[in-house]
């Protein structure tokens, strides 16, 4: 069937669109615009409250408890978080490869390298695994902070830090679930180039969540 021809030439077709692209692609961009404002609100609050906590622990400075004389070290562990950031950034690369693999599914594969690059399941697994690893790092970070005496109730830093990074972690979790859903579809019936859009919108979301992390990592961890 000349499906593509009927889609574009017959205005009576249900799938006529003004821009000639699928509506889901526009909707995900609108959604991402909205998500930007969500994180702008969270990040602004974090920055407004930066340095305004009355009691420690603090992110970048040591704090002496006047009651007990205990010295609490700066709480952020930048090397560990740098590692988790690297993993998350790599996941974006895997996502790009997963999308390319789905888009080129029907193209002939000649070499072993072609076959690896064209393996959508592999790259979707890698992306989901990298996301899960990032979440593991975050779980480790959160528990160690609680052990060191910083909870969401301790001070302004604790409230705004856990809420901001927790919201980001929730977004990564949603992304991992999305990727697992795509994997399930891939195993059940195989993702082909006709499904590019499904992977494309998931990838846009995934990259967005990554970009937000770069902003958070810079503003929360790197800038003192």
């Amino acid at each position, binding site marked *: *069937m000349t*499906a593509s021809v*009927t889609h574009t*030439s*017959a*205005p*009576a077709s*249900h799938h*006529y*669109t*003004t*821009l000639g*692209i699928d*509506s889901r692609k*526009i*909707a995900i961009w*609108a*959604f991402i*615009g*909205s*998500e930007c*404002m*969500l994180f*702008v*609100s*969270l990040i602004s*609050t974090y920055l*407004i*409250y930066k340095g*305004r*906590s*009355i009691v420690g622990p603090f992110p970048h400075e040591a704090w002496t408890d006047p009651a007990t004389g205990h010295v609490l070290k700066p709480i952020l562990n930048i090397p560990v978080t740098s590692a988790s950031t690297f993993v998350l950034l790599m996941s974006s690369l895997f996502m790009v490869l997963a999308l390319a693999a789905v888009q080129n599914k029907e193209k002939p594969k000649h070499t072993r390298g072609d076959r690896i690059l064209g393996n959508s399941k592999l790259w979707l697994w890698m992306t989901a695994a990298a996301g899960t690893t990032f979440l593991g790092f975050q779980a480790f970070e959160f528990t160690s902070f609680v052990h060191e005496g910083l909870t*969401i*109730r301790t*001070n*302004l830093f*604790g*409230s*705004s830090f856990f*809420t901001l990074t927790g919201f980001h972690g929730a977004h990564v979790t949603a992304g991992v679930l999305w990727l697992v*859903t795509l994997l399930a579809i891939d195993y059940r019936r195989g993702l082909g180039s006709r499904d590019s859009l499904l992977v494309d919108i998931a990838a846009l979301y995934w990259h967005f969540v990554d970009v937000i992390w770069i902003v958070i990592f810079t503003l929360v961890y790197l800038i003192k």
Partner: protein
Amino acid sequence: MATTAISTPAYGGEYSGEQSGLWSWLSTVDHKRIGILYLYTALFFFMFGGLEAVIIRAQLGAPNQHLVSAEFYNQLFTMHGTTMIFLAIMPLSAAFFNFLIPLQIGARDVAFPRLNAFSYWVYLFAGIFITVPIFFAVAPNGGWFGYAPLTTKPYSPGLNIDFWVIGLQILGVSSLAAAFNFLTTIINLRAPGMTLMRMPMFTWMAFIVQVLLVLAFPVITIALVFLLFDRSFGTNFYNTVSAGADPLLWQHLFWIFGHPEVYILVLPAFGLVSEVLPTYSKKPLFGYPVMVYSGILIAVLGFGVWAHHMFAVGMGPIADTFFGLTTMLIAIPTGVKIFNWIATMAQGAIRYTTSMLFGISLVALFTIGGISGIMHSSPPADLQQTDTYFIVAHFHYVLFGGSIMGIFAGIYHYFPKIMGRLMDEKLGKIHFWLTFVAMNLTFFPMHFSGMLGMPRRIYTYDAGQGWDLYNAMSSAGAMIFPIAMAIFIYNFFVSRKRGEIAGSNPWGAGTLEWTIPSPPPEYNFARIPTVTSRYPIWEGKEVDHADARFNAQEGKTPADLGIVMPYNTIKPLFVALGLVIMFCGLITTRALIGVGAAIMIFSLYSWLLSPLEPEHH
């Protein structure tokens, strides 16, 4: 076009052409039926919020009255504001977005019909959630703006504020889902030739409103998350006492949302009136491009004026000057709209229908509200007016005189398109004049009681402060509204059954929605029209008229025309139900969170994995 070449598809069992009965409404994905659901639900909440206002005015009718307690009075004014803004005006606008956007741009439905149903059901359930507590006197009582730290646990220990926080959070989901949907629809489902600068002005204003929703709602979502966390988990976002939190954080976040929200409330009414005035003046809208640009400018500036709600907190001269100036600036594009409407009517062949009367009254009354708005854009003047009845007068002139008058203009104008029958003009005019008199009698004296220093949100007052007469006038005016509404409702339901048959274009309007039968068939357009002008009926070329003739034919089924219709589905309702149950778990037992999440996720996957419509190849 190739319509004849398409063979008739075999329909799945779920879809049937003629639809009636409860199940068809619960499972509908048709934008027109969802629009009607929004209309009925929002009218119900409008009357409920009105009833709250009537009790408020009865309490304030004379000094030292004790009809209701101070505590219940707090719940009344909080719920009056919350109901009117989130459960009445926004959903009434959404009713028109739903019904009109696809018809005005020449589309068969919105971009995501099932998401559209989801938005409605979330709105309905959230509306019930936030409204029911007032029957048990545990309704939200912190004002529609819910200022923290006042609304944090130490100062508001009851469940009242929890209902408000969670209710608004759920309503946000509904508004955002609808906004993504309409935004995509307007961008991507316009008929061939329907360029942006040919779109009807209502669709343009709707487009701008969706952008505002997409950008403003996340901010209040976060402000509410902070408040929810403070109340439920003991975080410190608004803990000014022991954690050193900033007492202005909530106010900034709330008003960054809250001021764009004002335009979310009024721009749809502006859009409706921009359809009404040209139709009954028999002239195209004056200065169409300027109307578009001024709408965009209002939206952009709307994000830069929020702190004019906060002059009284003492932000310093620089902030006061900046926000005073931006507020004065925003009067310019608004004023441009007023002048363009007047110029549209000038020298026109004006017909004073009920719709036109409501439309003209918007121009007049919104101007009064706009002018008092400019008065308190000046910080020194605002310090005298803030938290007085002068402000109450101001925002009722813009929200009642603007939004509600515009929405009534829209209801009388579009009723024949929605129901296929005309509303009774005689009753309509009685409704209009009663509303007009009631509106001015209620709200105009508030300028004076406010200037004489009467503060907002007090449940009673002493005699002899010069406020008695003005309050008696306001209360007398408020008692007229129920009579006006009773006439409207009677007219609405009688006309729906026995009104004169409308035909496709009873008012001689010029835009696409009037080329199709009334009520429109489920597929809207038998063939997607090709558009060559802003008013295809008035100034279109032969191709427009040919499309219009084809689309005016009645009685064709989708099967006759080879149009694939989406399946009806109950799944969006269940996703909405799961979502609301999940949120209910936050204030009842935590187990409900799991139950709700399970229902939601199961229904969501079931929805996403089932096809929207039959295969058609």
